[in-house]
C-alpha cells in the first residue's frame, strides 16, 4: 500500500474561521483523516515546531496555511513550512489576499500599538507598558515576535502553489481541492481553486440585474429591508458580485446580504477595488459635481468597501508610511 499523503495545517493572522471551516467538513473529515497523515496542526493537535524541523525537506505532501502574515514568528513559520512542503496552499482570503487583517495597512504601526495598548476604551495601562521583543529580568531573558509595519498576503512572503479563496473557503471547495490533490488532478501552479467567472454568473438573482443600474442612492444593508428576489445592486446595495470570483454558491446573497468580495477578483482583473469603484461610479445617474458628491456620500468608507479582503494585494499595495 502506498504511503499516505502527509499534511500540515497552520494559521497566521487569522480569526479562527478558516480552521473552523476544516472541521466543517463534518463527517467528511473522517474520510480525509483516514486518507492522510496529519503531521502538524497546532490548533487541534499537540505538535511542536521541532516536529516540523525534524521532517525532511519536501516531506509534507501539502500544507494549508490560513491567515495573513504580520509578525516575525509568522514569517519564520511559513518559511519553515515552505521548505518542508511539496505543495503550499494559501487557505482563505487572509492568506490569499491579506484579508480583513490587511485593512490595518491603512494605519501606521505606531497608531495601532498605541490604540491597542493604551487608547482603546476598555484598556487601563497606567504605566504605558508596551510589548517588547526582548525583555530581561533577574537574569532571565524572554522574547516576543516582532509586529511588522505591514500586513502581507502569504505569497508576498513565500512561494504559494494554490489558493483556496473565501472567508472562509466552503467545505465543498476544500473537499474538491483535497480530492484533486489525492487523485493528482490539480490545475497548473498558481491557480485559484474556484471558477474564473464573476459571482453574478451563479447568482439566483442574475435575471433581475438591469443593464443600466443608474444609482440614485447607495444604501447600507441595515438601513433597508431588501427584497429577497431582486438583484441587490438593483436595490442600491453595494453587492461586490460583479467584481468577485464565483464558487461560493452565492451564500451571502442567498442570505439576503450583499457580496463583500471575499473570493477576490477573476484572473482578468488586476485590482478588485478599482474595478468595482469604476463600475459603481459609472452607473450613477447624477451628472453634476454636487449631485455626484451627495450620492457618493452613501459609500462612507471606500477602502473598506472595495478592498475589504485585498488591501495588501491592491495596486497601491497598502503600505501606509505616514502617521497622518
Amino acid at each position: 500500500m502506498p504511503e499516505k499523503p502527509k499534511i500540515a495545517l497552520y494559521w497566521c493572522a487569522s480569526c479562527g474561521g478558516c480552521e473552523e471551516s476544516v472541521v466543517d467538513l463534518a463527517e467528511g473529515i473522517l474520510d480525509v483523516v483516514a486518507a492522510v497523515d496529519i503531521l502538524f496542526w497546532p490548533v487541534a493537535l499537540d505538535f511542536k515546531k521541532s516536529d516540523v524541523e525534524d521532517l525532511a525537506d519536501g516531506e509534507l505532501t501539502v500544507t494549508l496555511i490560513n491567515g495573513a502574515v504580520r509578525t516575525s514568528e509568522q514569517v519564520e513559520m511559513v518559511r519553515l513550512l515552505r521548505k518542508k512542503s511539496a505543495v503550499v496552499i494559501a487557505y482563505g482570503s487572509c492568506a490569499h489576499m491579506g484579508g480583513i487583517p490587511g485593512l490595518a495597512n491603512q494605519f501606521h504601526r505606531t497608531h495601532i500599538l498605541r490604540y491597542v495598548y493604551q487608547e482603546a476604551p476598555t484598556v487601563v495601562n497606567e504605566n504605558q507598558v508596551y510589548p517588547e521583543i526582548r525583555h530581561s529580568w533577574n537574569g532571565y531573558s524572554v522574547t516576543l515576535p516582532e509586529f511588522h509595519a505591514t500586513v502581507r498576503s502569504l505569497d508576498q512572503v513565500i512561494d504559494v502553489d494554490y489558493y483556496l479563496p473565501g472567508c472562509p473557503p466552503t467545505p465543498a471547495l476544500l473537499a474538491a481541492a483535497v480530492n484533486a490533490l489525492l487523485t493528482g488532478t490539480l490545475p497548473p501552479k498558481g491557480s485559484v481553486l474556484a471558477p474564473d467567472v464573476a459571482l453574478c454568473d451563479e447568482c439566483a438573482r442574475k435575471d433581475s440585474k438591469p443593464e443600466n443600474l443608474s444609482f440614485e442612492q447607495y444604501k447600507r444593508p441595515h438601513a433597508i429591508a431588501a427584497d429577497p428576489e431582486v438583484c441587490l445592486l438593483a436595490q442600491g446595495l453595494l453587492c461586490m458580485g460583479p467584481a468577485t470570483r464565483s464558487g461560493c454558491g452565492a451564500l451571502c446573497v442567498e442570505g439576503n446580504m450583499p457580496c463583500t468580495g471575499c473570493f477576490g477578483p477573476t484572473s482578468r482583473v488586476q485590482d478588485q477595488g478599482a474595478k468595482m469603484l469604476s463600475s459603481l461610479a459609472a452607473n450613477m445617474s447624477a451628472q453634476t459635481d454636487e449631485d455626484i458628491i451627495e450620492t457618493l456620500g452613501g459609500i462612507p468608507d471606500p477602502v473598506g468597501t472595495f478592498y475589504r479582503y485585498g488591501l495588501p494585494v491592491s495596486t497601491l499595495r497598502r503600505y501606509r508610511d505616514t502617521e497622518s
Partner: protein
Amino acid sequence: MQQSTPAAQEWRPRIIAFFCNWCTYTAADLAGVSRLKYAPNTRIVRVMCSGRIDPQFILDAFVHGADGVLIGGCHPGDCHYTEGNYKTLRRHHLLRRMLMDMGIDERRLRLEWISASEGDKVRDVINGMVTELQTMGPLALNDNMTRFDAELESDLDTYLVTLSTKEVEHA
C-alpha cells in the same frame, strides 16, 4: 524607477496624462502646432474617450513612478459617445476620495474638460499642475515598496533600530 539623475539636477514631477481622442488630444495637438510652450514633464496617452480610462490605469501610473495623473476629456454634453465623460467625472470623485484614504494627496489626480480648440488651456493646465506638484514633492510610491520588501529581509535588530528612529520622528 531609476535614480540616475545627478543630485545637482532639479527634480521634476512626472505627469501621465490620459487625453481623449476627440477633444483634449486634439487640443494638445493644436498647442503643439501653435508652438505654445508648456513644461515637458508630461507623457500623454491617447484614449478614444475619457470614459475608457479604467481607474486601474491610474493606480498603475502612480505605482510606476507618476507624481501626478491628468485626465483630459470633452466638456460635459460634448462627449463623442454621449455619456463617457460623465462616467469619468463620477469615477474621478470616488477615486480621489479613495486615494486620500490611502494616504495619497488627492490633488495628484486632476480632471479637466478641454475642447479641441482650447490649446492654450492644455498649456495652462499642465503648467499649473507642474507647479502644484512641485510644491508637493515626489510621490515616490516605489520607495514605499522598497521599504516594504526591506522590512522582511532585514535582520530584526537592524530593523528595530530603524523602526524606532522612525517612530521617534513620528511621535
